[in-house]
């Protein structure tokens, strides 16, 4: 499964990042790099079947502690 993720992200880097690099849009480039690292790590974790904690339950707990149900 993670091979697919690797291939997809390689294609993405070739078609997304090299044009940005060539156009010298440095702000876009760095923002994109950060987002890419983030999404790539999540994709790898998902492909290995790691369970990532969801923010839904903390939000629910916080709201029930405020509203009090």
């Amino acid at each position, binding site marked *: 499964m993670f091979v697919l993720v690797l291939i997809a992200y390689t294609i*993405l880097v070739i078609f997304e990042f090299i044009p940005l690099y060539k156009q010298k849009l440095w702000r876009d480039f760095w*923002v994109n790099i950060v987002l890419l690292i*983030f999404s790539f790590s999540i*994709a790898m974790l998902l492909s290995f079947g790691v369970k990532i*904690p*969801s923010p*839904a339950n903390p939000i*629910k707990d916080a709201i029930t502690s405020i509203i009090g149900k």
Partner: protein
Amino acid sequence: MQKEQITDKEAICLITIFILGSTLIIGIGGIAKNDAWIAVTVGIIFSIPILLIYSRVLSLYPGKDLYEILNLVFGKGIGKLVSILYIWYSFHLGALVIRNFGEFINTVTMTKTPMFVPMLCLGLVCVVAVNLGVEVIARTSAFFLPVTLFIILTVLLLGIPKLHFNYLKPILSQGFSPVLKGGFSVFSFPFAETVLFIAVFFSLKTKKSPYKVYFSGLLLAGTIIVIVTIRNILILGGLLGKLYFPSHAAVSLINLGNFLQRIEVAVALVFAMGSFIKTSVCLLVTCKGIARVFNLDNYNSVTIQTGLLMIYFSQILYDSIMDMQNWAFTVYQYYAFPFQVVIPVIVWIFAEIKKKKMHIPSS
């Protein structure tokens, strides 16, 4: 950033489909049982003042989007902070819509396919749509709305033999409090989510048109939702609050003669179009916000990564469909309240004060 123009008619179609979006999938007002239609009406009445506030904010700053307004009203620092809150909200909302769609496909039609696959397909289409810009999304919705209306109307007509009018009675049997609770849920689930349109309607023609667009959209979508809810009650009766996808279940009961069956596929098409438009708008608002906060000159370059992140986020959001149902109907309205009511009201008050101060020296 290049200037994009959408006409009032396209904007009305956009807002109508946005409101219909995931509402038709998971149904609303289930807490009020067979008074759900009263709950929907109450929700529409609740949402009129808040929509007035949104359109007032928009007409105070014509040609500006949400993030520019936040920057102008709160200044650079706090404006960026509030912008990040709105980026989070639209990102989360988009993930919720993708998840609703994925659960629907996974539960109803493609049970053996992993849920990630339909969500990925929907998300990638939305990425393409956002890359093409708000004009394309608006024109797509102008094309989708007649199709949607036609399908809903046809299904309604075909469903007439299955309607049981005695399911509406007894009206208000459990008092007014479940209706009010359902009304609050309805207010926050489809109607007040239109707060995101402050970031989209930066390119309407005149100063008056935000009012026209917001209220025509509210009226059209509200009428459709009330009609659909009444139809669901009349077909399903007491089952309404217990089903995950009441519209789909209600339509699947319709069969005429022995040849006109399984028309729920037509309704699934409506669901797909609605979630597509809604997710695109959410993704557009998120990308715009990221571009504004980091001072990028175009939001196109961050679209793909944000879209992928949204899809992954919707995948990790819930464990099961029970979680989703519970969250959408008991937690969501309180979670969304600050974004939908508190911050817009503060923005509106500050904007009015600023306008007054600007006017007095000049006149």
